[in-house]
């Protein structure tokens, strides 16, 4: 039981992306919660296609920044150029001035350029030559990073990772799905025929509505409980910050809305926790040597955290 309009968006994406329902849902959740997504996957699994489909479905302006080691901050946020006719500097906006921005291979560029993107993500504006330029609304960044290309990369520091609402993997399609991909691409790339399912105004309205989704005290306690346990866990060096708890709550609200509810269930929280907490935790080196992943730790925490199912005494 999905939200009617959002379901159409999902169906739109599914016409292009096959078997990637979870990724589509999570992207939409992030968009609704006004957060940004970090996609970690190998090239060629359809990251770009995914973002483009999403942008088209909501009628948003799509831009793309391909990060390279020599990319400068001005290449991202824009630059002021002297106009000899008018004798003034004119601001030429960079690719960040879009609604939906694909920041491809973000870990291949220098930390300086990375932070110019991430700061603007956080602040919702860019400042060039003393002038502050507001970013367009809605603003949604989907950054990708290649896990295999470690050489010549600048890994994102933990503090920067925290700015992404959620991190996810695309993963390969299975054989049947891949066959279907081939079949569809043979005729014509379906992305070109996509029509917007909702308008930008409607999207912005929905973004406002997300805040009104009811989060019961018990759910909040559950979120805090989970976050607290990541801090106490023996395998964890650095647990989830309160920003992580906020992110989890917001995402749960968006997820609830996507599923046509105006109240959050513990199920929403349970589903989202790994995507939201995993990149915000640093494991101890012993645990990493043992090959323990943050997702495993989260799974264990979930397996020993009581779900609130009783009404509180009034």
């Amino acid at each position, binding site marked *: 039981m999905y939200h009617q309009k959002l379901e159409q968006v999902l169906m739109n994406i599914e016409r292009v992306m096959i078997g990637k329902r979870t990724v589509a849902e999570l992207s939409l959740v992030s968009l609704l919660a006004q957060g940004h997504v970090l996609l970690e996957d190998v090239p060629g699994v359809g990251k770009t296609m995914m973002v483009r489909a999403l942008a088209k479905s909501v009628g948003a302006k799509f831009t793309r920044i391909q990060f390279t080691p020599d990319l400068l901050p001005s290449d991202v946020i824009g630059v002021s150029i002297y106009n000899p006719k008018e004798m003034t500097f004119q601001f030429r906006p960079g690719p960040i001035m879009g609604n939906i921005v694909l920041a491809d291979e973000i870990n291949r560029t220098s930390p300086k350029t990375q932070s110019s993107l991430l700061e603007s993500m956080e602040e919702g504006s860019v400042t060039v030559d003393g002038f502050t330029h507001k970013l367009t609304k809605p603003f949604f960044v989907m950054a990708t990073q290649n896990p295999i290309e470690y050489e010549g990369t600048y890994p994102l520091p933990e503090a920067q990772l925290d700015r992404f609402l959620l991190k996810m993997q695309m993963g390969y399609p299975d054989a049947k799905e891949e066959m279907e991909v081939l079949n569809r691409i043979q005729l014509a790339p379906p992305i070109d025929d996509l029509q917007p399912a909702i308008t930008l105004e409607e999207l912005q309205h929905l973004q406002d509505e997300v805040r009104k989704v009811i989060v019961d005290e018990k759910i909040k306690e559950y979120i805090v409980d989970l976050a607290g346990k990541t801090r106490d866990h023996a395998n964890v060096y650095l647990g989830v910050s309160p920003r992580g708890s906020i992110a989890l709550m917001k995402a749960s609200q968006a997820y609830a809305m996507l599923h046509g509810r105006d109240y959050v*269930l513990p199920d929403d929280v349970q589903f989202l926790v790994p995507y939201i907490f995993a990149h915000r935790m640093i494991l101890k080196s012993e645990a990493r040597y043992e090959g323990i992943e943050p997702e495993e730790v989260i799974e264990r925490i*979930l397996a020993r955290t009581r779900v609130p199912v009783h009404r509180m005494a009034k």
Partner: protein
Amino acid sequence: MKTDYGWEDVATLILYVLSFFLLWEWLRPVEQITETANVHFFIIFAGLSLLLYYFELNWIISGAIKAMFILVVLQYLYFDVPFFGEGEWFGELTALVGESVVLTVQQNWSGVSDLFRSLLFFVLLWLTAYLMHYWLAVRKQMFLFYLFTVVYITILDTFSPYDGSMAIVRVILFGFMLMGLLGLQRMADHERITLSMGQLQKWLIPLAALIAFSSAAAYAAPKSEPIWPDPVPFLTSFSDGSGVGSGGVNRLGYGVDDSELGGSFVGDETKVFEATVQGEQYWRIETKDTYTGKGWEQSREAESLTPFSVNEAVPLTLSAIDEESETQTVSVDVDLTYNHLVYPYAPDQVINGEADELRYNPVSDKVTSYEDGDLVELSEYEWEFREPRYSLQALRNTTGLGENAGSMEQYLQLPENVPERIRELSLDITESEDNWYDKAKAVEGYFSRSGFVYEQEDVPVPEGNEDYVDQFLFETQRGYCDNYSTAMVVMLRSIDIPARWVKGYTGGEVLENLGDGRSIYEVTNNNAHSWVEVFFPEIGWVPFEPTVSFSNNISLNYDLDLDTDDDTTETPEPAETPEPESPEPLEEDTGAIGQVDEDGSSGTGGWTAFKTFISENRLMLFLVSVLLVAVGTGLYRNRNRWMPYVLIRYYRSQKGSEVYPKAYSSLLKQLRRYGLRRKETQTLRAYAKEVDNFFGTHEMSRLTDQYERILYRSEDPKDKWSNMRELWEDLIKKTTG
């Protein structure tokens, strides 16, 4: 070596300290048991070893420290020279050790030097400390060691002079603390939690409080006496038979061999039989006639036993039968079976018993049971008997044997070397009396008049040429029934009054008063007793009870005044004087009889009626309660089958806003009883899906959806119940199958 210390290490340190205390408990008794001196060096060594393990010092360094400690202690203990400088002590030490190793290989244990033993003990402690370290740090389990410690302490406490009564308390305290903390560590390990101080406190404080409280309660609470006698004397007496051992404890219940009396009498609650009879009786088993100076034997074997059968008169006459005395019955229900029968004064016949033949031994008065010519042990039988009455006049008229002197020789027997002072004392006591009865009474009462003490323990066995009675009368003046009864027989015989020694049981304790004036008496090994019978030519054998009474919980209280009372009150009609043949405590006697009479005659009191009802319908009540328990258990175990119908009826009648949440909770409980249990970490929705999959429905999901709205959306549950009731009823009915 570790450098950073956290709260976890504090916990670990506590663990090591506690295990040191446990190890200490092993060393404490060593000093006393093995007469090892300087145990404190070993204790220090144990502590040192554990401390080194705690700091996880490199094994070479810690090994060197320990070896050095051992060396220093050995040098200090076994050599008088200073550690450094003069003296070839080290060479001597190695030589001694080498020599001892050779001796050990040759299994010449006694030649091994003390120094080598100390060294071995140190090595043993070293190993033990390592083992404890392994248990603590690696296995994180200590129960086995704890159990061994408890066993060790209890065994030492039981079989050695070591008193473990405080040690066991300490072991409990330290051991439980240790295991509780280890439990926490195991849990933290399992869940991969780093212990913080708060968590440590949260665990430690309740744990300590719990242990402290339960130990204090256990320490302060009254403890029942052990049901088994102290095993050491028990085993000794068991293996030695009764009557052997110098000063050892050796009397336990009824025994056959009385040839060497003395030693302590061991209290023993083992039930021998239950007797249903009117009034307390003395239970006779046999008599013995020959006093050896140490104990009692039989003068001769009976040439033949006199056979008789059930419902036939017993060929045993103790005294002239009083025709006025009423015939009574007693049924004896035996727990500890023997092939002899106990009988009251004075038996007429056995009216019920599973033996096809009974035989009477005319020498010992013993009645034994036979089945197909073989001895058989009866578990129940009934006697018909008539309580004898003795004419006081006839008793008092007796001053000599008359014509029957010949047959009484064996009852006047005394060993040749009986000290003369016994006879002198007897003459002295009976000087003022002229007849046998008063003489016997005088001897009977002598003990209590002269301050003899009833004592079961610390009763010596006569050694060498010492006479048992002489020792009791003139040296110890304390003892139990055997002392008193033997002394009285010997004293009477020394003044030519025929007497014999009788064995059996006292009346026992009243278990229950039956409505008809009869009572059930329980006779235990504690009631094993011996007393005296004196022969009066005109009357027969009359029992006497010389043993002084004691206000003791062992029911061996006898009242000597009873007879005198009777004497005085009955003096106007001496010919008709009824003489209670077994002296009993006055209060107990009157009390018991009074109560019985009241029960029998009035029966008006509600409580009495109730008690009567209970005792009359015991079997019935028992069956009913068994049935009730069975039905209750069955209902409880099958509650998931009927509970839904109860719940449906209950919730149909319910109204109000809170019904739906309550009904939903009941449904969850019912599902749990059914076997579909929700994990606490599972969401309701996931659980509902599971339940629906199981039943092949969607009902649970729909019900859950509504409940979730109440729970997480704070919706008003008012109208939900009417909409969801049918679904709910459908689902809950499914769980009855």
